[in-house]
């Protein structure tokens, strides 16, 4: 792979599987059961121009579990960004301070732009409604951990139009032979361009507005939040908010091995009464963000992880 991770296209299938294997071997370190300072002396720049909880914290945790340091952009209001600094200037500065940077930005293409501006590896932590490849890695890891393979029936539900996690994940799963079913209200369907590319790549793709009817065949159900912040106005948001909700009562006919995932935060898509079932994997999924980002940080910084 190149030293940057902008989209999943920067990784071959073999490289993805190798990363997942390395992540697996780092599980005891991620849990704090052993200490492995592979990245001692290295500094990660956590550049979050948009709110983030899990991605930012798991990058920071990953770096610290491996003995490295982290510097944060901090609140935008108190940074030079509020004074009108360009992304280019901010990233050139970080290029001098850090060995690697994770970047989240509201504008699509920001990660590639930053990669062009910097010498250090840039890890895309979400760019507008574009890509979120490190989320994809932890999603793939979670599926692999539960099923041992990726060529499965995967049902994606919710905001598929603006949800960058499902854009990246669907591309990656298609490469591993998964069958994809997209369930979304018409206004929030998977962008036509993405569906077209997936089909051109030979993926088996079905689109529907019916969630309940598609539950029984699924090996993986990937719920997403309708993202209020991506809507141009409140009225449009209200039309579709809360349209898909899963509760324990809906899971009667699902496969026993089915895992339920969600990139979090959730609002009301998954009722808390599902949390106690064997299907609920979203908190484990969130934890897996640490271990996959540990493996990725080692890789882009040229540090070998023994599997």
């Amino acid at each position: 792979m190149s030293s940057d991770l902008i989209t999943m296209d920067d990784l071959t299938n073999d490289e993805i599987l190798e990363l997942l294997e390395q992540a697996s071997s780092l599980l005891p370190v991620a849990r704090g059961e052993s200490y492995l300072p592979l990245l001692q002396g290295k500094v990660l720049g956590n550049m979050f121009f948009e709110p983030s909880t899990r991605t930012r914290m798991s990058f920071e945790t990953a770096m610290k579990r491996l003995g490295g340091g982290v510097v944060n952009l901090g609140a935008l209001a108190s940074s030079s960004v509020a004074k009108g600094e360009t992304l280019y200037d901010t990233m050139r500065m970080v290029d001098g301070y850090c060995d690697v940077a994770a970047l989240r930005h509201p504008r699509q293409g920001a990660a590639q732009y930053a990669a062009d501006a910097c010498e250090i590896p840039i890890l895309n932590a979400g760019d507008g409604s574009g890509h979120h490849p490190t989320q994809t890695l932890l999603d793939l890891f979670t599926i692999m951990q539960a099923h041992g393979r990726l060529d499965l029936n995967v049902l994606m539900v919710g905001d598929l139009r603006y949800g960058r996690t499902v854009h990246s994940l669907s591309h990656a799963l298609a490469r591993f032979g998964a069958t994809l079913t997209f369930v979304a209200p018409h206004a929030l369907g998977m962008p036509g361009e993405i569906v077209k590319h997936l089909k051109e790549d030979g993926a088996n793709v079905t689109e529907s507005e019916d969630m309940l009817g598609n539950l029984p065949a699924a090996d993986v159900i990937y719920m997403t939040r309708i993202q209020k912040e991506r809507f141009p106005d409140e009225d449009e948001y209200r039309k579709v908010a809360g349209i898909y909700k899963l509760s324990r009562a809906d899971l009667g006919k699902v496969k026993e091995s089915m895992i339920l995932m969600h990139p979090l935060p959730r609002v009301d898509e998954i009722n808390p009464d599902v949390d106690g079932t064997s299907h609920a994997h979203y908190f484990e999924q969130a934890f897996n963000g640490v271990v996959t980002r540990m493996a990725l940080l080692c890789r882009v910084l040229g540090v070998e992880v023994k599997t």
Partner: protein
Amino acid sequence: MTEMRRVTAICNGTVIDHVPAGHALKVLRMLRITGVQSSPVSLVMNVPSSKYGAKDIIKVEDRELTQDELDRLGLIAPHASVAIIRNYSVAEKREVELQNEMVNVARCTYSNCISLADREPLPHRMKVIDSEPLQLCCHYCGRSQDMDSVIENLI
């Protein structure tokens, strides 16, 4: 009707032939020929062409367009043929070459692309995905570009 020259021969400059019919004004815009320069510019539109049925022709006097300038035309006139004229004779023939990437030719058509943010200094970059028909995508955001919109977004 006898054949007559619609535009006279030029002494020095550049002749761009086989421009797709009706596109001459866009070509001038791409070459940043606005008409305020002092050199004469002639153009004919929708004249018969044995190759393409109809075509436009542009003659720019006292200015030799560079290969870099001409390559910008790959976006709308990839089959244009270009002659550099010196002392009423064709001194050089040039072809428009479609590059793998077009730098600072057009802005991305996706309004939320980082390349459209205020004062960002890196160049606008379009990758050529396919040449027939021409398909472009933004180097930064990766979005496929609607060609009609790209023409509106020329730099």
